[in-house]
């Protein structure tokens, strides 16, 4: 077939009026198609702030992750036929006036990548907000002994402090209504404690 080489369409900001309806019910990834997701259910929550630690209201946070066994529900994953039928892998949340977002999901599994290296348990995360003409993309890690792990994406972050900020913090006391273990991942789009973002 013809292989055209078309220029990509320009990205633009979501602006201030992203409809709340589009995020309703999208923050809970622990059920899909009438089934409960396998694995350890967790709460992943945090705040999205800009320079001066000011909360960003009505930002949209989206996530994409493999299931508890490290399998993506996607045809490119050679193991996709074994993907958890109760787990879809995608979610969306909208921040409130304090910049807070919340997901309920499963702890993602590790898996070997194409080069034979291990991808540590991780969740892809993106932020859309007014003032951002493009999305901001990062990756959330969970690994215990985070300092020692090697992951092909995490290893691209040289600065150990910035690297550490990509690890979700286990909260001692769960503030989840359902009592799920809680992990905190705060996103600083700009500022001294800025999150490490990857090429979008």
């Amino acid at each position: 077939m013809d292989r055209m080489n078309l220029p990509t369409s320009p990205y633009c900001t979501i602006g201030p009026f992203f409809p709340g309806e589009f995020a309703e019910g999208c923050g809970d990834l622990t059920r899909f198609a009438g089934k409960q997701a396998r694995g350890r259910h967790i709460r992943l929550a945090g705040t999205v702030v800009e320079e001066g630690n000011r909360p960003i209201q009505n930002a949209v946070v989206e996530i994409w992750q493999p299931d508890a066994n490290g399998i993506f529900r996607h045809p490119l994953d050679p193991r996709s036929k074994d993907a958890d039928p109760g787990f879809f892998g995608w979610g969306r949340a909208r921040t409130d006036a304090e910049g807070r977002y919340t997901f309920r999901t499963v702890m993602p599994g590790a898996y070997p990548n194409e080069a034979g290296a291990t991808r540590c348990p991780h969740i892809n995360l993106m932020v859309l907000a007014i003032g951002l003409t493009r999305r901001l993309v990062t990756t959330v890690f969970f690994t215990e002994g985070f300092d020692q792990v090697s992951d092909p994406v995490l290893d691209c972050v040289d600065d150990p402090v910035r690297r550490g900020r990509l690890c979700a913090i286990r909260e001692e006391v769960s503030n989840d209504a359902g009592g799920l273990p809680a992990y905190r991942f705060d996103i600083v789009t700009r500022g001294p404690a800025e999150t490490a973002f990857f090429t979008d």
Partner: protein
Amino acid sequence: MPGQSPIEHSIPPALPAAPEVDYEPYLENTQLARYIDHYPRSFTRNPSQPLIRRPLTLSERTGPVELQRRLSIDSEDISSKVPGGPRAMGQYIAVTGRVMDENGAPLAGAVIEIWQANSAGKYVHELDRHQAPIDPNFAGLGRFETDAEGQYKFLSIKPGAYPVMESDWWWRPPHIHFSIFGPSWMNRYVTQIFFPGEPLNETDLLLNAVQDPEARERLIFESTPTTVGAVNLLIFRRDFVLRGKRATPELE
């Protein structure tokens, strides 16, 4: 029981390589600038540190597919609040086009979300403080999917212009917001599409933040001759090219 199911913890052997699709970084002159004068939030929200290049593994090359199973798809007619109900005030329009990758291959089954102001320039949104009336017959949002040829279509009303509350001069020209899910995390796409011939297009800070004039045109609908389609509606067309190029096969 949540958290009680057995999980296989052993890591299986290396996976076969995923089919090669290139996701080149966006060409900056064909995209909006990240920092835009007179748009203060672009300076307080964009990261100060450079974005970090990383390899694209299976995780970044996959993304939500069959989103129709997770998100409800609406009727293609959002010109009224309920299907068959009274139509919203304003010019009745059809919006159509194709979603494809950089090779021109159609992206079938892609989910498209749109949101827009009503004909008076007012959104149905708790944060919209513009003193303009809400139209009881217009919800201003919809979710659709592309067909096997990557085509989408919906019926709506033309949105009105509105003032930016934080500015004393900036009026947003009529535009429709699009959010499109390609098959990969790397081609998740969000934008705003403008209407041709609008005087406010000349001063809009966002539209004019695209340096390359040809790229700017890709943010504007093409109008269709009024002789096409039903007599009572205007048709606007916009194709979308999402990032992603299948690698050229090597010569044998």
